[in-house]
């Protein structure tokens, strides 16, 4: 290969042009087809997102089949809380008015973890006016019980103050007499 004084420079320039051209071609080929139709995103993404099956049915979807829990739930302090937050999504459980799968029911320590996801004072950012928080195990020590107690031994999970208010009423009656 005979090289002149500037053949390497020419080759570099040609090489750079080829690289840029390949890059542009690659960019064209690899870019998703529907990209940029509406804006700087894949237009297909809209339809794809719309086609995703809805997994959560809201509390209304649970009430018809679970009137017993619903009635308790709606009467208590947790009435605004989503059933599905604690139990999992509707889609795993019911379809077209039929039960299709079991939802996990938390027991023991799991319940403690579940409750503390919202009621833990160690998470500093909880606005105390909206969600009352407790610090563990101080909360149990205040009640003068063993620190192994689980929340649902005193709080009804669906209406957390149900038993406590009940107990207070009984105690109040005793005090009155």
């Amino acid at each position, binding site marked *: *290969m005979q*090289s*002149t*004084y*500037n*053949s*390497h*420079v020419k*080759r*570099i320039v040609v*090489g*750079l042009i080829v690289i840029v051209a390949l890059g542009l071609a*690659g*960019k064209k080929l*690899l*870019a*998703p087809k529907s*990209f*940029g139709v509406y804006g*700087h995103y894949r237009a297909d993404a809209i339809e794809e997102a719309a086609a995703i099956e809805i997994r959560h049915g809201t509390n209304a979807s649970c009430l018809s089949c679970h009137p017993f829990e619903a009635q308790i739930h709606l009467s208590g302090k947790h009435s605004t809380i989503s059933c599905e937050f604690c139990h999992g999504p509707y889609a795993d459980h019911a379809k077209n008015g039929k039960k299709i799968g079991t939802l996990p029911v938390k027991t023991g320590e799991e319940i403690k973890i579940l409750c503390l996801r919202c009621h833990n*004072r160690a*998470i*500093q*950012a909880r606005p*105390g006016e909206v969600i009352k928080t407790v610090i563990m195990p101080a909360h149990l020590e205040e009640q003068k019980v063993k620190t192994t107690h689980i929340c649902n031994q005193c709080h009804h999970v669906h209406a957390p103050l149900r038993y406590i208010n009940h107990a207070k009423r009984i105690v109040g009656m005793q005090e009155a007499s």
Partner: protein
Amino acid sequence: MNSVHEGASYLISNYVFPNDLHVHWSMMIVLYPYLSGLVDGAFIVAALYYVFGVKSLKPIARFSLIFALSFLLCVGMPVMLHLGRPERNLNMLITPSPSSAMAGGGYLFMVTLAVLLLLILFLYRTFLVKQQRQSKGLKRLFYQVLTFGSDNLSDEALALDEKVIKFLAALGIPVATIFHGYVGFLFGGVKANPSWSTPLMPVIFLFSACVSGISGIILAYIVIKRFRKEAVDTACVRTLINTLFGFFILAFSFEMLEVFSHHYLRSGYHHMVEGLLNGPLFISFWIWQVGICSLGPLLILGWLCLLRVKDSAFVIGSAIVSFILLLQVLFMRWNVIIGGQLMSKSARGYTEFHPEWFDKEGIIAVVFVMAVPFIILFILSRIFPLWMEGKSEAQGAGGK
């Protein structure tokens, strides 16, 4: 315990949003600007020789470029380790958004790499052509690729090379500056973070980059020369130290200016920034970055530059001051990046950073990422000799 004010004191003190508890931009994002800063600084040293004709820098001019290349090749590594889905980084390049600095950064990286690589290949062309003529088979092919298949070393060709080198080196200055300025800009552009979002951020990053790069070159030069039992060119080191002094004064002034302007302006989140520097960052900012690693070097640099210092003491002093300044810049990156994320958006509390050992962004990974550039430097030094003294062809390049 159950006092009336307990609730109130919880509200006003250490109130951290749950999504602020974890420091997301961890140590890899500290290393990223550190590495790219070393590239930038090392390039500035080379530019001083090739563009501005500072002749005393000749012994380390080529070394600086190879040093810069070794680190540039690793700049992407910490970022990839940080990403949850690193393979998706290409998407950003395929459909770059004009309003995203990150995509621009990807392209800037490629331009910087091309300029640096071409500059090195042109500088070493005479040497590479000779290697090619001496070798056979695969090795010959390898050198043919590096010389773009041309073995023409006529005067005309060398004159052309010289022009190209000047052009590339001059082009390299804005490219390297923008490349690293962009890194500072990335932080400066985060509106949500009051300690980052200042127009001074790119400037501070640039000057500290120059400081770290020059220090890196000085330290590496002295250590390698000592290791090989070769003489250190003190004239060269003196020039480097003078340059370093200048850049460091600027870098440090801007760093302090930033703190001062936060303090003086007392803008909305000023109390958070002040509390950060005087609270969680007190040790790493005031004691280490400002005290030990800035005031110390200013004294040593003053001594080295302003007084008559014997050569042997000068070399030792230079190595020490370079080492401390490398630490200074690392502390600065740490305090800006990790430090900046310790403030909660609640503007009421600070979180803590817990580095892990075995995480993909953990301490072991940091050591690994910092070691790779040196391995690359070693491999590159087998192809591109770092020192050209005593070799007649040295004047083939640079034209000085």
